[in-house]
Structure formats: structure tokens, C-alpha cells
């Protein structure tokens, strides 16, 4: 094994270690919140870290095909955030929903 290969192996190891630590720290943020956007942000961060993780694993194992998963992950991480934002923003509709419902205008129920 050449020196550069040794360096690369070491770098892979170091990167995995740093990423693992990042994972754990981010998970802590998910757990402690305190608010929903904080958790969502942390989840998004987890996805970001995972993309890096995948890159490292791809290099380490030589199976670069994992890259596609990274692409998809970038996509879906985004999607989750969109959904949550959508959720939070639509809470105002819910206010409306509740109000209309108590007034009996919202007529989905059986008479």
C-alpha cells in the first residue's frame, strides 16, 4: 500500500469518525428540539451528513454506484423540508377549519 493510499485510508477513517460524531450531535438536536422547525432543520442536516457519508463509503468500498443514492437523498431531504414547511404554513388553514366547523358551515358531516 503506497503512502497516498495509506493517507486516503486514514482520511476515510477520519471522515467517517467526524461524520459519525456529526450524526450523533445532530440527533441530539432532533431530540431536544425545542421547536418543530429546529427538528426539521436537524433532520435536513442528517440528510446532508448522510450524503457525505455515502460519498465516503463509496470511496472506501470502491462502489461508486452509491452516488445515485446521494442524489436521491438530496432530493428527498428537500422534499421532507418542503412538506414540513407546508405543514407549518397551512396551520392557519386549520384555524379556519376549526372556526368554520364550530359554526356548522363545514358540511362534511352527516346531518
Amino acid at each position, binding site marked *: 500500500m503506497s503512502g497516498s493510499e495509506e493517507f486516503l485510508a486514514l482520511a476515510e477513517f477520519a471522515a467517517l469518525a*467526524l*461524520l459519525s460524531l456529526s450524526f450523533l*450531535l445532530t440527533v441530539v438536536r432532533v431530540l431536544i428540539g425545542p421547536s418543530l422547525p429546529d427538528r426539521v432543520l436537524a433532520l435536513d*442536516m442528517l440528510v446532508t451528513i448522510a*450524503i457525505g457519508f455515502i460519498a465516503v463509503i463509496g470511496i472506501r468500498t470502491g462502489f461508486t454506484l452509491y452516488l445515485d443514492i446521494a*442524489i436521491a437523498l438530496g*432530493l428527498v431531504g*428537500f422534499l421532507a423540508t418542503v412538506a414540513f414547511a407546508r405543514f407549518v404554513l397551512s396551520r392557519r388553514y386549520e384555524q379556519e377549519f376549526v372556526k368554520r366547523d364550530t359554526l356548522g358551515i363545514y358540511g362534511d358531516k352527516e346531518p
Partner: protein
Amino acid sequence: MMATAENLITGMLLIIGAGFTLVAAIGLLRLPDLYTRMHAASKAGTLGSGMMLIALAVFAHDQSIVTRALAAVVFFLLTAPISAHLLAKAAYAAGYRLWGSSLHDEMAGTLPKRHAPDAAAQDDEL
């Protein structure tokens, strides 16, 4: 020679990228409110992972991998600010106010408010 350079660059990118990622994670934990945390995640985080993807591109000899890795980076750069924006907007709209020691809020009053701007009460049921 070429291989050595590749390995060195790959390794460096990996370490730096992972380092940025860790910094982002630390920032996520340490920074005082959502908006400041978002700075950490959307910048350091994006850059960190982006570098690691580039490391993969450097490492891989298959040009289709190279192009895909670069595409991934671009894709990533495209979506990251959008999610940051959406999340910030949503949080703000939902009544999540700035950290107590923040200096300005020129946006105050632009959106209907629901909750008392008290971070402690902003837990759950958001």
C-alpha cells in the same frame, strides 16, 4: 503519480468536508435560535457534503460518476437555499420569533401572528 495526487486530493477533500459537516453539527447544537442554526446547516453542511461528493468525483475514474457527482453538487446547491428559505419562512409565519438578544426584526408585522412570541411556549403543537 496521477494516482497519488488523486488519493491526496480525495483524502484532503474528505477530511475538510467532514470537518465542515462536524462544524455544522456543532453549530446546530450551540447556536441560540433556529435562524442562526440555519446558517450553520445551510452553509457549512452544504459545503461539507459537497466537498465529499467532489472527493468522490476525483476518486472515481468513471466519467459518468464524475458528471453525476458534479450534478449532485449542483442539485444540492440548488435545493439547500430553498429548504432554508421555506423553513425560515414557515417558522416565522408560525410565530417563531427571533432569539431574545437579536438586534432587529424588520419583518415584524408583515405576517399574521398566532402565538405569543415566547420561545419556551413554542415547543410542540406548532
